């Protein structure tokens, strides 16, 4: 581009091509020879070129947003606000389920306790006791009943009178769900099973699905029981306290404790695994994979009849846990599987010792081909239970606790992974016969013992404290599972929202948007269901919320980083826009400058003209 900013120097052509005719007319006052062409001009500077360049520049500037829009990658609009709100809400206020408690005082004669038992009084005293307990033991635990519980008290004094506290209509239960007076006849208190069965039939539990579960504690005053008051928890949602000559007032504390510790809290105490780590897959399935590991089959190798174990012992547990998870079982025997930590011989203990410090290294992932199950889908949780048979040069192998004692179970668990147990053969004498060692079958008693330990581990993994899994505990687990699912979906959605917001050039497909939407809906539904007390529905929708949230988070399109990065965009468009924008900007700048210059000249001439006039 030629440099033409200089004004014309010759007098023959003092004017620009623009407006030449006009200048003749306007320059009548001053003579043309007076005009210094370097500093002034007689005509108004033309606007044509200025207008042209600026319109080009402007159209570029206007077109830029359109371009930006066209190169924009597709991002499905996600409800970030809702997602964050959900995760915050679940963080701040754990889910609380409504629980209904009912206490029945059976065979309490007014005479025996020195006065007529007033259900209302009893109710208020139990309530105060319970609030005391909840406030001291629970730090707003997720999935518990919290303060959201109701209590009704029935005093059934045989055939004569049956008084109830009048709170029933308020708790959302249909009247026929609660205890009907006189339903419980004489109980043979010596036989726990019979009492359990009688209570089950008397307390019709089928209707306790709506509006939360109803838990009943019956205080039976009667013969047949032992001397002191004895508290038992049935297989279903009830427990009973029996004893002779019971004092109703004294039973209040006990009853409150039972309600809170067992039915509300599942008999668990602090220090157990936190409820957030419920080992249940997002699809509600769990695979229990049992492996028998023979460290060195050249020394000896054992086999087990797991089928029998499965049929007789494992099935009841699976049945009991059905509300929480759909559990399937598989087993295998592996060989040549040494552990990867070291053990040393301890003379005083008479065995090879591995200490708790070695536990992280015990599981030998190189040699233990425990194999995740092909049968399990992508979301199914797999819990590994490993029975380790040590080889001859490390037999017997024992776990030493930090206190220096030998662990009685000889096993340990790893949360969310499973459990390991070391089983030592009876005699650690290496097989020295001719030919290879024969296959040995574990004795059923041994198997039973192993099974007990493994079931203990399973309970620990599920966070249960008590020895058996009963319906009440399963309820607690189910509540916690719901809570955990919601919590998980909340955190997943929260981190998804943060991730998506932090990566502005990530493609978000519509599918993800849909999944997020449905997940949020399911979470809402779970929360409303939980607040009404629909445990099963709540668990189902919470599971759905979690799996959808994880679907969205682990969507393959999210995992792959967007190919259409900003660098790519730059590389494609810069060869055109860089030179062109240079042209346009420079032209606009020059024209503007020239216009100002020329304008100043003209003004100067005008001034001169005025002066001259």
């Amino acid at each position: 581009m030629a440099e033409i900013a200089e004004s014309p120097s010759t007098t023959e052509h003092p004017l620009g091509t623009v407006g030449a005719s006009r200048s003749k007319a306007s320059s009548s006052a001053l003579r043309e020879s007076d005009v210094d062409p370097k500093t002034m001009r007689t005509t108004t500077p033309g606007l044509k070129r200025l207008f042209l360049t600026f319109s080009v520049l402007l159209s570029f500037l206007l077109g830029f947003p359109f371009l930006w829009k066209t190169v924009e990658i597709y991002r499905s609009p996600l409800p970030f606000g809702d997602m964050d709100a959900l995760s915050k809400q679940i963080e701040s206020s754990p889910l609380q389920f409504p629980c209904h408690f009912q206490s029945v005082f059976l065979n309490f004669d007014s005479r025996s306790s020195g006065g007529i038992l007033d259900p209302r009084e009893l109710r208020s005293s139990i309530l105060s006791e319970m609030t005391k307990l909840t406030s001291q033991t629970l730090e707003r635990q997720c999935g518990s009943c919290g303060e959201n519980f109701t209590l009704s008290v029935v005093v059934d004094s045989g055939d004569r009178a049956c008084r109830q506290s009048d709170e029933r209509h308020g708790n959302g239960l249909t009247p026929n769900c609660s205890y009907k007076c006189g339903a419980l006849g004489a109980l043979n208190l010596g036989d726990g099973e019979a009492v359990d069965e009688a209570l089950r039939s008397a307390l019709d539990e089928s209707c306790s699905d709506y509006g939360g579960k109803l838990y009943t504690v019956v205080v039976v005053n009667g013969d047949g029981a032992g001397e002191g008051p004895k508290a038992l928890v049935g297989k279903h949602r009830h427990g009973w306290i029996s004893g002779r000559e019971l004092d109703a007032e004294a039973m209040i504390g006990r009853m409150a404790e039972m309600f809170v510790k067992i039915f509300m809290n599942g008999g668990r105490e602090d220090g157990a695994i936190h409820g957030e780590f419920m080992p249940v897959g997002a699809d509600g399935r769990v695979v229990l994979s049992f492996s028998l590991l023979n460290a060195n089959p050249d020394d000896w190798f054992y086999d087990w009849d797991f089928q029998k174990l499965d049929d007789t012992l494992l099935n009841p547990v699976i049945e009991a846990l059905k509300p929480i998870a759909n559990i399937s079982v598989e087993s295998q025997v592996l060989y040549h599987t040494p552990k990867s930590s070291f053990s040393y011989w301890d003379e005083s203990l008479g065995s090879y010792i591995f200490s708790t410090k070695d536990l992280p290294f015990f599981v030998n992932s190189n040699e233990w081909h425990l194999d995740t199950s092909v049968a399990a889908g992508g979301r199914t949780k797999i819990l590994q239970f490993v029975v380790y048979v040590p080889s001859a040069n490390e037999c017997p192998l024992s776990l030493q606790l930090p206190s220096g004692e030998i662990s009685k179970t000889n096993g340990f668990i790893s949360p969310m992974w499973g459990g390991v147990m070391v089983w030592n053969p009876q005699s650690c004498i290496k097989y020295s016969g001719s030919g290879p060692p024969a296959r040995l079958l574990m004795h059923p008693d041994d198997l039973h013992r192993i099974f007990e330990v493994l079931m203990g581990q399973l309970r620990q993994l599920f966070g249960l404290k008590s020895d058996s899994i009963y319906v009440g505990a399963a309820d607690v687990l189910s509540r916690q599972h719901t809570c955990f699912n919601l919590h998980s979906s909340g955190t997943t959605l929260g981190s998804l929202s943060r991730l998506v917001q932090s990566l502005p050039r990530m493609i978000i497909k519509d599918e993800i948007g849909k999944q997020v939407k449905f997940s949020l809906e399911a979470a809402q539904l779970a929360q409303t269901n939980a607040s009404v007390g629909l445990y099963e529905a709540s668990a189902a929708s919470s599971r759905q919320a979690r799996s959808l949230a994880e679907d969205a988070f682990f969507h393959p399109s999210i995992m792959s980083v967007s190919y259409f990065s900003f660098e790519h965009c730059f590389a494609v468009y810069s060869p055109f826009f860089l030179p062109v924008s240079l042209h346009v900007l420079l032209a606009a700048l020059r024209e503007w400058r020239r216009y100002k210059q020329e304008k100043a000249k003209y003004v100067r001439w005008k001034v001169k003209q005025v002066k001259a006039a």
Partner: protein
Amino acid sequence: MTIQIRKGKRATEPQCLGSQRSLNSEDLLFPNQTGDSKAAVYFQLSNGRFRPPPAHRLIAHHIVDTIAPIFFRVSRTMWLPLRLTLLLLFLLLSPRALLRSGSAAVVSGEEEEFHEELLLKPLPDRKVLAHFHFHSIAPPSKSNGRHHHLFPKAISQLVQKFRVKEMELSFTQGRWNYERWGGFDPISSNNAKPPGVELWAVFDVPEDQVDAYWKNLTNSLSGLFCASINFLESSTMYSAPKWSFRITPGRLRYGTLPREAVCTENLTPWLKLLPCRDKAGLAALLDRPSIYKGFYHSQRLYLTSNASVPAETVSGISLEQTLTVVLQPNSPSSSSIHSGESNFQPSWSLSSIFGRKISGKCVLAQSSIVYLQLEKSIFSEQKDNMDNGPNSLASEGFAGGSGFEMSLDPDIVIEEENQSQHKGSSVLYGFWVEKYNESQPFDLGLKWKYPVFWSSRQAPLHASRFLMGSGNERGAIAILFKSANSADSSSGSRHVSDGCELQVDVFQVVPWYIKVYYHSLQIFVDDEAKPIGDFVHKIQVSPSKDKTSPGMMEMLLKLPCDVRSAALTLEFDKGFLHIDEYPPDANQGYDIPSAVISFPSFHSVMHLLSNDSIRKSPLLSRFQEKNRVQSYTEVLLVPLTTPDFSMPYNVITITCTVFALFFGSLLNVLRRRVGEEERYLKAGKKKGWLRVLLSRLLAKLRGKPMEEPDQPSSESAPLIGKKLVLKVILVAVLAVAWQFYST
């Protein structure tokens, strides 16, 4: 379900594909199919290894959110007593239970079985064939196949989940040399496989679901074997042969990946399916460097399940794992090979081939036998030479009188019973491995005393396939059959006569970008073009669909028995791929999978004198099965036109530059003040000679007389002009020098 499995695959894939091909890849194979990444992280934690798995780096956000509490607890309290992290169990047990004995009983009855066998066979070209055969059997059980003692759990679950009736998966490196190593015996028919991966499976599901099951199966196998079998998922990669590949009809799917590199990371998961892995037993011989050094290496997995039983009781599964390697024994006298004594078979021992010895059997194996197979023709030669009485081959073999010597006495000698002819039959020496232990390892050696010759039995026709034509546009595939017994035409069960026909099945799959014109099929018999109808008895073609399905051709040829050579040619056009369909290293070319040539009227059977020990041996009973003689042709490499992959960017850049130039000049023209410039030019004092030249040129072009500029300006110009010329010349010289010396 599909999605879940895919996810599982994706989660594992980075681990497998990212694995460097180290010899010990076991540590890479740990969480094999954890679709749940969190579980993997947990496991790492529980192992005390705190490096986060790289595949999950992107989801670290999420993981930190969900497992942060435990993660930090673990890392913080790592050195403290582990009470917090690994919760110990303190379940109280009764002392009675602790004291009680673990009394044991010997298991018997219907159980899962495992057999291991190894067949060694010297080959005519001074190589040694080692054929490992592992057989696991799971009997039909009512336990729903969930509890296993010996049988690999993964395989059983695979069979159940994908309703697999029959499946064969092979990983092969190298090509089986049919001419030298034989083409008629059971090993070459069953275990000679095309290079790369070959997978076929028969499903027990309705026809419309077969494809879905196949896709899921490929993904699962891909995770299980750390191979890219999942590429067979795409419908362009597999086909459904009707009758030529297998006689089993129906729900069969067949796919190959000729370019899959097979290495130790595929072997390790394969070994994982064995109860003893490579820790004990015959598999302990599998020293990775020595087996991958060989000429041919094929690991194979073949399973059948009798899926006809109702769904409640799970069918029994028979899993056959074979590993076939052809190795060159490096005998100490290898130097003599070049010095005239090239016909001397090298002496070898197990330790010289594999670098290891067998220290006892795998204790879990029902049987553990090593066989040495020798051709009978060796003995006949011996007989001729030594003039011994043909009384006992066995004693003759190792007694020292014959041409070879075995370092160990065989426990059993099995002769092949072949009444019709002498040639091709063989003798098997069996050795029980259980007699040996660590102090006395099994190390079989074979020493040749005299040079011996023999040739392996050949398939009736040698098949080879090659490409014709040149250029990137079109070409032709030719399959050439050559009679193997041209020299001794009397052999073969049929005698040359007019009515005699030789049946040949050809099964060929061609990827869609090779557009085969099936109408252009030509057949040449004994170098003469013949009408197709005379020889092609049956043909079935499913043409390829672009980006949907490969082309498949099944053909049954009936050739006269005295045919010397036959050739089939098919012309094809080379297609174009979309830019993102090109594989990495597209310039290498594209593979056409091997064609399968089988001879339905010939069966590779070993007739062994039936014996109890033979019936128990899965290897020998496999040899006694009637199988079609089958061979694979070469994989063809077709060069396709590959674009320059940086071309889009080049085009973009050039176009944009042109546009920018146009735009810029347009803008310039629009805002230029021509009159002013001309004035300026006339008055210009600093006008250089170049500009003058240019304006002159311009004037010439316009056909107008050039207005001469003022004299003084032209006078002052030369001084500058000279300098400029010098400068330009200097730059030009520099540029030429640079160009010259830099290249």
